[in-house]
């Protein structure tokens, strides 16, 4: 029976040496590009590979696209070095830069310098188009939905303008605002009547209307917010040490140099809904930081 005992023991041994396989691998420098896809996330996610290829060709380094759909996860991954270059929203970009000293703003789209949100309402709610910001007070007592809790255009700025008009979320029906999770979902829940009104990114609204995805009989815009700055490319500090001299500058040039000349570049700009990228400064985002602090989203 000794052989059987040995077999039993070796079975046990197999069990015990269950592998912890966190094997360190020789690290090649790879530029990890991340994004919080906000508009057209479906297509964006699958076609982001093209951006990675474009940057890889221009900069001669390995580039990998890392999709992130959770806002705080993207900010944290940027802080801890899991992401080198990220397409952030206004608020998340400021959060990321505050947590990562030395991080730089590289670029924004032409439209980001003059971004807007829209307030939409279900037609059966009785809400009328508003001419001035004070008209937002008509939203008191209504069921109101933001988008995602960290979205600049779907939550932060709308809440800021509401506050300016003297409306706080506790004055909505039920004593609070809802959070649909995304711009498209906000349209859906307002159109369905579950919520009477909501706020979202104007760009998403326009493209949804143009694509016929909105039943304009049921839901319409009641107010366009004033302009503010939103999305921007943010890059981690000290990339030059990993990828070579003046790498950050070259990266900025590569992004700014995207022109609708080759099919790939056309696709990339289309995906971002941009004609081109323009330089951006950190100072442009000071107002966002101020609003973020006022509303407790930046501590």
């Amino acid at each position: 029976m000794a052989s059987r005992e040995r077999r039993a023991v070796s079975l046990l041994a197999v069990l015990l040496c269950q592998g912890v396989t966190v094997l360190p691998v020789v690290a090649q420098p790879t530029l990890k590009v991340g994004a919080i896809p906000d508009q057209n996330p479906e297509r964006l996610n699958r076609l982001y590979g093209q951006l990675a290829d474009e940057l890889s060709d221009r900069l001669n380094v390995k580039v990998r696209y890392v999709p992130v759909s959770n806002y705080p996860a993207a900010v944290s991954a940027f802080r801890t070095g899991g992401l080198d270059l990220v397409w952030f929203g206004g608020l998340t970009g400021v959060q990321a830069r505050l947590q990562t000293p030395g991080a730089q703003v590289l670029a924004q789209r032409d439209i980001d310098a003059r971004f807007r949100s829209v307030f939409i309402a279900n037609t059966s709610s009785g809400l009328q188009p508003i001419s001035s910001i004070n008209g937002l007070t008509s939203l008191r007592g209504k069921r109101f939905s933001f988008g995602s809790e960290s979205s600049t255009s779907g939550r932060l700025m709308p809440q800021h303008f509401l506050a300016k008009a003297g409306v706080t979320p506790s004055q909505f029906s039920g004593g609070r605002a809802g959070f649909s999770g995304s711009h498209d979902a906000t349209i859906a829940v307002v159109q369905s009547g579950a919520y009477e009104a909501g706020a979202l990114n104007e760009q998403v609204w326009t493209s949804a209307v143009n694509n016929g995805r909105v039943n304009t009989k049921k839901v319409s815009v009641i107010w366009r917010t004033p302009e503010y700055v939103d999305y921007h490319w943010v890059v981690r500090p000290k990339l030059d040490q990993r990828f070579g001299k003046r790498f950050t500058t070259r990266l900025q040039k590569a992004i700014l140099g995207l022109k609708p000349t080759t099919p790939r570049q056309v696709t990339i700009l289309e995906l971002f809904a941009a004609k081109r990228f323009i330089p951006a400064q950190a100072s442009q985002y000071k107002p966002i930081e101020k609003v973020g602090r006022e509303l407790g989203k930046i501590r």
Partner: protein
Amino acid sequence: MIVPVRPTAPALVLLPALALLPVLIVVLNGAHGGGAEILGSFVVGAVSPSMDPALLKALLIGLQVTVATALTGWSCSLVLGVLLGCLSSERLWLTWSLPAWPAIVLRRLMALPRSIHELIWGLLLLQVLGLHPWVAVMAILLPYSCLIARVWRDQLQSLDPSRLQAILQTGSSPMAACMTALSPAMGSVLVSYGGYRLECALRSATLLGVFGLGGLGMDLELSLKSLQFHELWSGLWLLTLVTIALEQGLRCWRSWGEQAQFGQRQAMGFAVAVGLSGGLGGLWLAHLFPEAGSLNWLPVQWPDLHSLQLAAQELPWLSMLWETLILTVLAAGIAIGLPPLLLLLNPARPWQHCISGFWILVRVIPPPLAVLLLLLSNQPTLAIGALALGLHNSGVMGRLLQEGLEQQDHSAQVALTSSGASPQVGWLYGSLSPRSPSHLAYGAYRSDVILRETVVVGLIGGSGLGWQLLESLSSFHWAAVLLLITTYAALTLIGEWLSDRSRQHWLQS
């Protein structure tokens, strides 16, 4: 005259279904047809999922990440959970003639990891480990191992102690005695419960895709965010197929080990499979993330006392706790009571197959999606959240109940129906009745899970502990996060204490 008696076990199993009443009243009251178009396109999406090759390729890559993460997390959590479960069993300490208090302390300590949702663990681990595939594995490992440990410990404690004593009396060493007297019964628990945890791990790994680690969850979430239902269904169907394959595979495995010695080998084979799949999953992850590198612990800055005090004053404690508790109780009621209620309606075979199909469906549909779908034809109320959470978890409870019923001896039901009882009554007394204590026990564990899952549906009302936790996390307000996590742990501890007490009171005396 009717004399009220203490409710018996099968009644206790059906009573929680009463939670459906208030929920349905609120939901039906608020129902409207406004979302019909969108709901319609959701249904259309189900029958015509997108077959775009680019999408399918992305989904298959995502599935690999998800499965590898699930396998690794499942395997590690099972090994650790069984170990912790043994260590937290008073009986084993006493068998070795040691004082039992370490077991009790350990058991209480495990409430903390268990009370926090995988998603939150993922975000917290991301802070200290950076973006690494093992963040997702550990986010599964932490709550799962503690939940498994609790189940394992309870099962160990519930075994008849006389057999262990009889073997110890032969002069056997405590280890050999436990192996001989306890492991046969625990082996079948391992195969049955352990197998079921794999499916749970698959769902959790799916959810954890949103962190930038990739996976099916990422694709599902993005499709959901942009309401691309055709694309969403491609992912959901894939997940359904994997779930069904897993369930059938486990069923085959179980039916294989009927004979005595065979059963032991089956359990041993299962244990070896668990170990191997952990190694395999780990290697697979290393292959999928070649640049991941080794795990490094990054320094954390703990919030100081002052900021904790400030945060404590800011939080709306009363409404937060109240809403979370209501949500949990209603959802748990639905999750526990609905499966036996549906089965009771018609114990005939074809209907039961229909129901198990329904359970797979509600398990596969993630709660946030369920909330959105319910919202489209309703108004935002807590009842929506409770219904979504309750239905999702009733899928899990239903699966466990049906599995238990299949393995159980049917002679009592046959005896009752042959004495002229209706099929319903025969099923209720003959089949459900002996299954009830374990269904209630699993129900208690599920309530734990539901409590931490309130995080996922927190968005709907913009309220409750779950929403506050997400809001604090997205504001990087660590003081509030710490307080909220502690609150979750405290609620879990109280829940555990209550369920232990009530089970003792209702079932054991």
